[in-house]
């Protein structure tokens, strides 16, 4: 099983069935009130379903935190075109590993969420787009889909409700950019994974140019609870303007890394000390990334009083993002961290637009040289300057995602860059070893 030991401070809503024997099987899901949210929704009007999702204050869990109910209400339900539901299971943001456990442990919860979305916008087909590297998850998902068909939870006239729905899996080919919603849709349509010009947004012209709801796996997984227990119950779990729980991936230098389901607004300090079991080897915390490598880095002092929610992070000029928390201790070389992050973005830039395509690789080259001790003082400003010239100017947010952590690291850890000057070896690397 790919799930760490649960922690008592968790609020287990999406993960409520994790740890049960054979959790992925449909029998177990049905025994635990599975698909009851769908049956309830089938008796409601689309407006009522969307209203419950709005009340729940559910915000997209893919990174941008857009209110889900509002997104669903943008779909022109009266359009003569077919509508589609697309699940974003491309999970590639460094530090993020929550969608995989949701699919692996409770795939039927995802299917139910998709079905409810289908009811809400009158869609009759959906796709679960799964990251190429998650090959094994496609088997899990395919098996669950087959079970659902066999037991009448997918297909024609589902459980006598008169509602038809077909669900398919689709695999990516290993590109972070295909997690970006419009690039995902291109990839789903069998084309090169490059983003589209928006507007139009997927709600109006998504898959095959038809109205489409596209949400993250975790977002869909929250929906059955909302329908089963009511939007208000979900909202009450969180804080105002952000309902429910957040799957939080604690990674890096803590004693108990893992995926934990925490209420929105959970205090960062408590998360590290108690849920994560404190810093590894009693070291001091140096840097903190709240939601995947695309977010600006915070220092230990900036974390005073911080909570894991959208506003608290925004107040610190960073983002809750995908919930991929990365914790770095005092032995971490921040130049190397910047380099490691930039290697990722240079590798994943789709190449569509100039600032991201050229900027990421340029930065990677400078940072590599810099970390090897070949940097000059002007390079430090240059790194920040290049990143600033990417920020806000690229076609899609990947360019921003590469720029933001870089800018924050140069600003907040400038002294570490100074320490690498004049051919000095990296103080954090064992002598002579330079690995990235």
């Amino acid at each position, binding site marked *: 099983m790919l799930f760490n030991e649960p922690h008592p401070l968790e609020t287990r809503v999406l993960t409520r069935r994790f740890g049960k024997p054979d959790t992925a099987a449909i029998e177990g899901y049905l025994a635990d009130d599975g698909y009851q949210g769908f049956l309830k929704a089938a008796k409601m009007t689309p407006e009522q379903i969307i209203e419950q999702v709005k009340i729940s204050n559910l915000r997209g869990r893919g990174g941008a935190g857009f209110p889900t109910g509002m997104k669903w209400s943008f779909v022109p339900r009266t359009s003569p075109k077919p509508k589609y539901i697309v699940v974003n299971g491309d999970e590639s943001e460094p530090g993020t590993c929550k969608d995989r456990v949701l699919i692996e442990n409770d795939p039927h919860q995802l299917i139910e969420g998709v079905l409810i979305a289908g009811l809400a916008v009158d869609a009759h087909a959906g796709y679960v787009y799964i990251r190429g590297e998650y090959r094994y998850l496609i088997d899990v998902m395919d098996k669950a889909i087959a079970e659902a068909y066999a037991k009448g939870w997918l297909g024609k006239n589902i459980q006598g409700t008169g509602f038809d729905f077909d669900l398919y899996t689709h695999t990516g080919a290993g590109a972070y950019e295909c997690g970006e919603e*419009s690039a995902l849709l291109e990839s789903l349509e069998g*084309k090169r994974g490059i983003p589209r010009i928006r507007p139009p947004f997927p709600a109006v012209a998504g*898959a*095959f140019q038809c109205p489409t709801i596209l949400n993250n796996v975790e977002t869909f997984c929250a929906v059955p609870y909302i329908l089963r227990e009511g939007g208000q119950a979900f909202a009450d779990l969180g804080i105002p303007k952000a309902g429910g729980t957040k799957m939080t991936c604690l990674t890096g230098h803590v004693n108990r890394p893992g995926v934990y389901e925490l209420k929105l607004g959970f205090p960062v300090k408590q998360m590290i000390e108690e849920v994560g079991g404190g810093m590894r080897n009693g070291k001091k915390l140096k840097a903190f990334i709240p939601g995947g490598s695309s977010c600006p880095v915070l220092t230990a002092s900036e974390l005073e009083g911080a909570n894991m929610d959208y506003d608290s992070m925004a107040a610190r000029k960073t983002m809750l993002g995908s919930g991929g928390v990365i914790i770095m201790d005092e032995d971490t070389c921040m130049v190397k961290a910047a380099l490691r992050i930039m290697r990722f973005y240079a590798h994943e*830039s789709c190449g569509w637009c100039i600032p991201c*395509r*050229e900027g990421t*690789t*340029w930065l990677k080259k400078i940072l590599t040289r810099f970390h090897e001790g070949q940097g000059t003082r002007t390079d430090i400003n240059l790194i920040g300057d290049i990143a600033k010239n990417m920020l806000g100017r690229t076609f899609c947010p990947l360019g921003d995602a590469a720029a933001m952590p870089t800018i924050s690291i140069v600003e907040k850890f400038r002294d570490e860059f100074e320490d690498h000057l004049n051919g000095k070896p990296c103080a954090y690397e064992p002598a002579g070893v330079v690995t990235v």
Partner: protein
Amino acid sequence: MADLVNLTIDGRAVQVPPQTLVIDAAKTVGIEIPAFCYYEGLSLQAACRMCLVEVEKMPKMMTACTLPVAEGMIVRTETEQVKQARKYTLEFLLTNHPLDCPVCDKGGECELQDMVFRYGAGESRYTEEKVHTPEKQFSPVVFFDAPRCILCFRCVRICNEGMGVNALGVINRGVVSEIAPNVGDHLECDECGACIDICPVGALTSGTYRYQTRPWEMTHVGTICTHCGDGCKTTLGTRNDEIIRGNNRDRSGINGEFLCIKGRYAFDFYNHPERLQAPMVRVNGKLEEVSWAQALEVVARKFDATVSANGSFGVIGSNHTSNEENFYLQKFAREVLKTNNIDHHRTGDVVTLLDAMSGTKSQLATVADLYDRKAVLVLGADLALEHPLLSYQIRANYRHHQAHVYAITPGEVREDKYTVASIRVGGGPASKKGDLGVIPGKEVGATTSGPGSHPVGGPGVVPNAEAGAHFDPVNGPGKATGSPTGFVVPANVKSITGNYFDALESLRDQLKAEPELVILFDDSIKGADVRALVEFAESLGIPVKFICLVDYANSRGAVDMGLTPELFPGYKPTGASGMHVSEMTGSDLDVLWVVGANPLKGAVKRKAGFLVVQDMFLTETAQQADVVLPAASAYEKSGTVTNTTGEVQQLTRAVNTMGAKPDLEIMGFIAREMGVAGQLGPWVANVVFEEIRKNVRGYSLPMPVIATGGAAQSMPVNGRIAVDDLSALVHSDHNGLFASGTLGRYSKVLNSVLESHLSR
């Protein structure tokens, strides 16, 4: 005006129609917003980020190339932030650019150079190693130098959207993204070179032009392509009396920037090593080079003697020579040689169409109509292969205006990808068309479909390239979105065993519902069929325009200028009989005079007592001649030609070939030698054209339009043309993309492309 949008750009009030993009709105007041990936007429990309501008109330800078105007919008294009963004975007671009401008074909005409000059930084802060990949050859005419590429995706779009071929794409990602050809390491396409032409930098280069010259060393001459009947304007770049390049970058002709492989490269026949440069006279059974004076004398004396002896003459004219030459030739034949045996190879039944149309509401269409009219019906022809420009226009009409296109053809055609309805007639073998042409020493079989228009799907359906596995297509035509959208309407292809008229009847209701229609037909429809077609069109009760397809640059002009026994110039019946081409070659005339034609091709033995041939090459006909007079090509003379839609355009001499003379001049010298020059009038192209304007029905055209390189459509003949139905003489050569009758054999480029296509 109420329906205009008001906005402010750099403090200037701008009024434009709704949906105008900010980048275009700025142009209306003379403000340039720099752009690489934006290209008028192609789908939007927003990839290069050069066009970022500030818009009040928007948090970030916006791409002017994708932003539609809005009422009250305030745009700033010259702020510090905007200028700085441009500078750094260019700096980014140059990081991996080789900056090999000194040896680059594009140096001096390069948009990247111009942008850096105007908006760039004086220096680069880039000190890392550049990404480098070696140069590749994609085809005989297309080379690719990846490091110079700025990934603006213009080439990909012009090939996919403009040509409908889809042969270029992108491989890899990030900084190593690269433009790649469709089949492994090479291109299988129309070889039109549009990708090279549209490339803003020197990344795609031409197999014939690369490393030949610096652009500023050339002189540019705008003239008309001599190959097919579409009549594209081509701008020839010449240096030291040599043509080195053909393109139409200034988009000045009826073809805009379009040229097919023939217009762009196949001017090269003009300096083929076998080009004739001296007159020849048969001495003791062998052709021997002589002086012009000697040769002209032999011809004149023979003509004189035959005229005095009341002997028989035959005159065969050309599909390539100018209107002036054709006019002068028929006058020469009729007035001096006193013969009505004058004809040319007829490639489309223009005569019956004009006659059938007279008194009806039907009109003749122009090339522009194919882009503007709401519906187009193609009968018979595989346009993409035989009339590339017309095919391009229809495609653009579909992409930009969602025109309704119908195709009734024997085989698959490229138009099938977006037709409302495609009908395969005949039910027999798919097609007998699309002959690739002939390579010397190698006969080429027929292909059903040209490169790039590979048959898709079995009979009945053309699969929707855009559709996903579980997709039930109900969407509309492709719109410019972020990705290069191709053609998303699945074609409705039906196969019937009936003929063209059965097919037309089955479309009657659909066609009736169209607001207007342009009908194109080739030689599959002739004689009575043309009349029936016009009748069918009239019965639809909608405005219909026609295009009768003809093969070569001046096929239409040859009929207009009276190169037939039955008609004088301007379709005035002669009322006299005369021999047709095959009758002339088949009978023992005293003298046969062939100007720019090859009627004896394919082992036909000469019968005439004396044969005079004016040509550029020693064709099968010239080989059997008694006198051969070396003629200038279309690129070496001035005059006018009339294309398949009846549009008259001007030829401008680009170069000279030593020893060869324009046919008009040759005829003039013969007349002078015979002492009839005064009777026939001056043999100067513009004087003859004046005579044509005054005397030939339909040709009283506005001179300023033509003289400035424009096209003026000749007016249809109003009134019946009372002649016998001679449509049996009409035969199109159906030249494919890489063939051009006899002329094509002498083009190195066409041959190398053919050979490379055949050798794979």
